[in-house]
């Protein structure tokens, strides 16, 4: 049996990227080999380093090359506010859009028994340790408004209640610039239930 050529191996390897099929993988491989060897080399080095050295922050489980991520290590952040998110990408979004000055905790998903994701897979034991340390004034749940997200919120809220920590959830409702008639019934019901005085 003939050994697979290096080119084929490269095309195959590129297909692990999200949204990249055989066609795109081939295009990327040819582009790097024909036009951008320097970029390709840099990618190879950085990718190799990143895969070896980036791990999870011991406190908040976000991706970090240090044992403690930059946010957790920052003394100017308020350690009594803890915002729970599903993925590291959401930290970036919240940091850019809001003036939140507290810390984060990354679940890496949501409780979904049918996918085999239970409390242990979401690092809720790490969160439990965080509760025991004390010093938390408010826990902010910023998880998806899906059934699994609500289950996750319920579970964590119960956990927090045992430690006497106040729990809040970010609001669900009509998007800014959105027109009511195009908002689905469920969202509208939430928006109505969560109305407040102006």
């Amino acid at each position: 049996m003939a050994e697979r050529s290096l080119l084929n191996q490269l095309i195959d390897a590129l297909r692990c990227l999200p949204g990249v099929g055989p066609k795109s993988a081939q295009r990327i491989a040819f582009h790097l080999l024909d036009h951008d060897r320097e970029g390709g080399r840099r990618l190879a080095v950085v990718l190799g380093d990143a895969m070896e050295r980036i791990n999870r922050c011991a406190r908040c489980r976000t991706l970090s090359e240090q044992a403690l991520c930059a946010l957790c290590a920052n003394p100017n952040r308020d350690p009594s506010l803890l915002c729970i998110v599903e993925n590291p990408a959401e930290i970036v979004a919240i940091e850019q859009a809001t003036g939140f000055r507290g810390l984060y905790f990354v679940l890496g998903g949501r409780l979904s028994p049918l996918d085999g994701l239970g409390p242990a897979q979401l690092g809720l034991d790490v969160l439990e340790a965080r509760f025991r340390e004390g010093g938390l004034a408010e826990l902010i749940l910023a998880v998806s408004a899906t059934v699994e997200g609500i289950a996750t919120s319920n579970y964590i809220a119960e956990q927090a209640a045992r430690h006497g920590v106040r729990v809040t959830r970010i609001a669900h409702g009509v998007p800014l610039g959105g027109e009511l008639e195009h908002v689905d019934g469920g969202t509208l019901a939430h928006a109505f239930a969560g109305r407040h005085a102006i």
Partner: protein
Amino acid sequence: MHSRDRLEQAFVLHRRDYSNTSLLIEVFSATQGRFPAIAKGAKRGRAPTAVLLQPFTPLWLSWSGRGEVRTLARAEAAGGALTLPGKALFCGFYLNELLMRLLGRHDPQEDLFAFYHAALTRLALGDDLDGPLRQFELRLLQDTGYALDLEQEWDTGEPVVAGRSYVHEPERGMRAASGVDEGLTVAGATLLALAAGEPLAGTAAREARGLMRAALAPYLGPRPLKSRELFQQSGGASTAPPLHEGD
């Protein structure tokens, strides 16, 4: 054959992302049973269908295709989503996990579908979680061909009486407990109450829980049910967890 224009009553049991904008959903429909379907572009647009395609939302769905995986054509809400409060939501996941494990694909189960809808409606009330779960477990065994007779001894055919103790034998049924039987015995009164769908509390509720766990075990396969974990770990000393404790 199913027409893509005909809307059928259905629930989504489970969903997962499929490419950037689509979903792969597991449908439980009244007329066609459980089957997977692709909801193309469900997460796209101004009013994405992904909002609707969630567990515990009564739906009208239509689909096309003949293969194992169907293609979703339309989805409309059939009334509002059933809001399962707190632990009732974990119970809902448990029902879905049971259906995924015990129900074969493309096996029509109209009665079970109605029973599932009713069980969710009762769970949504949030006051009694044990009752709907036990009744659903019994019904699921019955409708999948593994009925458990609670009112008759399997070996002698004698009727179960309230004053005696009974032992469950896997894949057979109940028999009268003898002096040497240790471990799990169930009071006849509990069996009769369970069969009649009466509310159970305290010891009776615990017995019924253990019994149904043992009765389901042979059909669930070796992997433990993940939704049970949610109860084992979420403490709550105030009320007994409605699912089974420990392994």
